[in-house]
């Protein structure tokens, strides 16, 4: 077995046997799924709780609007003053009191109507009450205009503009948001992987330094081999962990949904998503069901195979670049607390890439900012993957940009690994001092 294979094997085994790694691997899916289920469950619970609302109707209207339903009960107060009704509402423990005063016409009643409650009322309750009053108002206004409800419905029929690309491909609303979610997920995955496993590489280097085994090993293998073995071994452990997360997470989610009888659709509505994504997912549900075939077709149009291939290319190159920087940082310092000043400049481009992705790429996937950041090597693995769902070639990422970006990335990869390996080689044998950037630069010149 070659020395590099030996090192990769050791690093992999050391990592996957690590207790906290094992715990994280098997606990995280439970935590994640548990959280999603909890949120979904709580949302449902909130909706299911039956609210009792008192009604003091002094007007001649709204006789049929406030009827007890599954979610809300209405109790009518009769022939008492507003103050007495409020007191009763409180003493009976009702959620609130809707007060409709005696006015000359419906519009006036609506204007003067009040809802009293202990705390600020929930948005759902308020919506329901407002809807009831609005529909009654609409009825009245229609009557005054002399329109039948049927005529009104006819008038209010919604309209969708037909959209098509210049090539004649049919397009649909909302597909851009779906593409953004797919691109965003890929980009986010890369960033998380780099930060988590780059950190592991760094800590592993620091551990070798502090346990003083480094010189023993360096007398048997080249530092470069040790560094690469460590990076590869750790990333294999990371991929194992991710695979376990995805598989067990999916299984758990299905089991959980079955057990708690939660409708998956309620998850997308119920705030289970990050805010940035939720706005993107805010697709009209009716349109979705109508156009479901078109969507499936469109998603099919996203170059999934090409995306996966490029994901792997960008992922591997991006991860190697960043983790060799992490390895060099680990080699330069003596303990983890000294890493802060070096870590920040590393995380910065990653954060930048994600922000550029969410704020610029999604709104304008081929705009100048998106192009620039998908060529710049420290951000391209993330930004380019966010652009890719819009396709390659016409309408999407031009081929030359893709090739240039990968070539720049490969060039940077060679340069950075070379620099990192030098810093690593000098750093691992330096004990007891915290180097400055100036000192790191000096190390580059050592032979």
């Amino acid at each position, binding site marked *: 077995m070659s020395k590099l294979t030996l090192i990769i094997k050791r690093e992999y085994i*050391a990592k996957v046997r690590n207790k906290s790694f094992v715990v994280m691997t098997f606990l995280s899916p439970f935590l994640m799924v548990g959280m999603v289920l909890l949120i979904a469950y709580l949302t449902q619970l909130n909706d299911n709780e039956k609210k009792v609302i008192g009604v003091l109707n002094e007007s001649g209207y709204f006789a049929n609007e406030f009827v007890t339903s599954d979610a809300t009960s209405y109790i009518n107060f009769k022939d008492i003053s507003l103050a007495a009704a409020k007191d009763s509402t409180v003493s009976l423990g009702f959620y609130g009191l809707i007060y409709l005063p005696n006015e000359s016409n419906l519009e006036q009643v609506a204007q003067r109507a009040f809802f009293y409650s202990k705390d600020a009322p929930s948005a759902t309750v308020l919506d329901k009450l407002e809807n009831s009053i609005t529909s009654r108002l609409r009825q009245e206004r229609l009557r005054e205009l002399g329109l039948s409800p049927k005529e009104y419905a006819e008038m209010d029929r919604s309209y969708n503009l037909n959209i098509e690309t210049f090539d004649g491909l049919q397009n649909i609303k909302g597909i851009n948001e779906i593409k953004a979610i797919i691109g965003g997920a890929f980009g986010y995955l890369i960033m998380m992987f780099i930060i988590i496993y780059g950190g592991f590489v760094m800590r592993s280097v620091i551990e070798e330094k502090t*346990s003083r085994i480094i010189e023993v090993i360096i007398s*048997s*293998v080249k530092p470069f081999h040790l560094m690469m073995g460590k990076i590869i071994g750790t990333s294999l452990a990371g991929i194992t962990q991710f695979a376990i997360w995805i598989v067990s997470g999916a299984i758990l989610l299905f089991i959980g949904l079955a057990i708690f009888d939660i409708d998956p659709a309620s998850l997308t509505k119920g705030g289970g998503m990050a805010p940035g994504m939720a706005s993107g997912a805010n697709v009209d549900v009716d349109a979705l069901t109508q156009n479901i075939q078109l969507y499936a077709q469109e998603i099919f149009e996203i170059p999934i195979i090409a995306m996966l291939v490029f994901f792997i290319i960008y992922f591997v190159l991006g991860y190697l670049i960043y983790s060799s920087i992490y390895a060099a940082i680990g080699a330069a310092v003596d303990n983890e607390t000294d890493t802060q000043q070096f870590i920040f400049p590393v995380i910065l481009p990653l954060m930048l890439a994600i922000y550029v992705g969410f704020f610029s790429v999604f709104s304008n996937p081929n705009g100048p900012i998106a192009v620039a950041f998908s060529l710049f090597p420290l951000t391209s693995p993330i930004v380019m993957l966010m652009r890719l769902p819009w396709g390659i070639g016409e309408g999407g990422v031009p081929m030359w940009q893709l090739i240039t970006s990968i070539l720049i990335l490969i060039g940077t990869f060679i340069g950075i690994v070379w620099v990192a390996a030098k810093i690593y080689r000098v750093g691992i044998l330096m004990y007891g001092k915290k180097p400055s950037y100036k000192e790191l630069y000096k190390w580059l010149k*050592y032979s």
Partner: protein
Amino acid sequence: MSHILVANEVTKQFGSHTALKNVSLEIPKNSIYGLLGPNGAGKTTLIRIINQITYPDQGSVYFDGELLKPEHISQIGYLPEERGLYKSMKVGEQALYLAQLKGLSKAEAKKRLKYWFERLEIGDWWNKKIQELSKGMAQKIQFVVTVLHEPKLLIFDEPFSGFDPINANIIKEQILSLKENGTSIIFSTHRMESVEELCEYIALIHKSEKILDGKLSDIKKAYKNNIFKIGLETDNQQSILNEMEGKFLILSQEYDSKEKQLNLSVQLPSNESGEILSFLGSRANVNGFIETIPSANDIFIQTIQNKNIDNE
């Protein structure tokens, strides 16, 4: 005589700091060679060059007659001064891993480990983690790992640090028996007691330069200055001393009147002791006569002091 290692005018620079300056060494086969010098003199840099951890800026190193190359790594065993093991790895696994990195097959490594673990009576540690062992125990593992691949050249940098006297002795015996079996050994230290016991050859490195090297016994001969310690049993010490004043240079004297014992330290103009012996023999009972051989420590300090004076 053939040499296991020859360094030729080796120079190494770190930025503006010169770590080694034109250092040449010849390390004979099947010997224990002491690499001595104060902290920071450049010993570790030289050892790292031999191990190909760093490379010389100028000069060349030959291993067993060939220019040093990566393949030689498997024929060198190195116990660094800054040493340790993976804390959370099991002893056996770790030893196997390090042995395989040196090029041994897994089966062969296992066989040899079994042998060494029995030899040092540490067989039942196989499944323990390093963090469960004491420092001295971990050092033993480290020693085994260093010698396991049966290298032609062993380099020990301060091998006895971290050992209690009993275990230090066990390791010393192992080093001597390795030498008996034909291994060449470089022994780097600034502790002189162990040098006297082990080394046949020494080189002294001071401020990046080699200032002295050769066979320890030759160096000692060169450094002795004909000083003799003399013990006399006599009543009339004063007259003997008076008589001696003119003839010999007396460095120190002390007289025990109860035991009638006079102890002297005398420097002679040459190695010839016949004259003084016949002189003393006719006047008193000589019960002690021994030439003072400088210790390695004396030589070490004296050479460095001379060097410092030269430089000023």
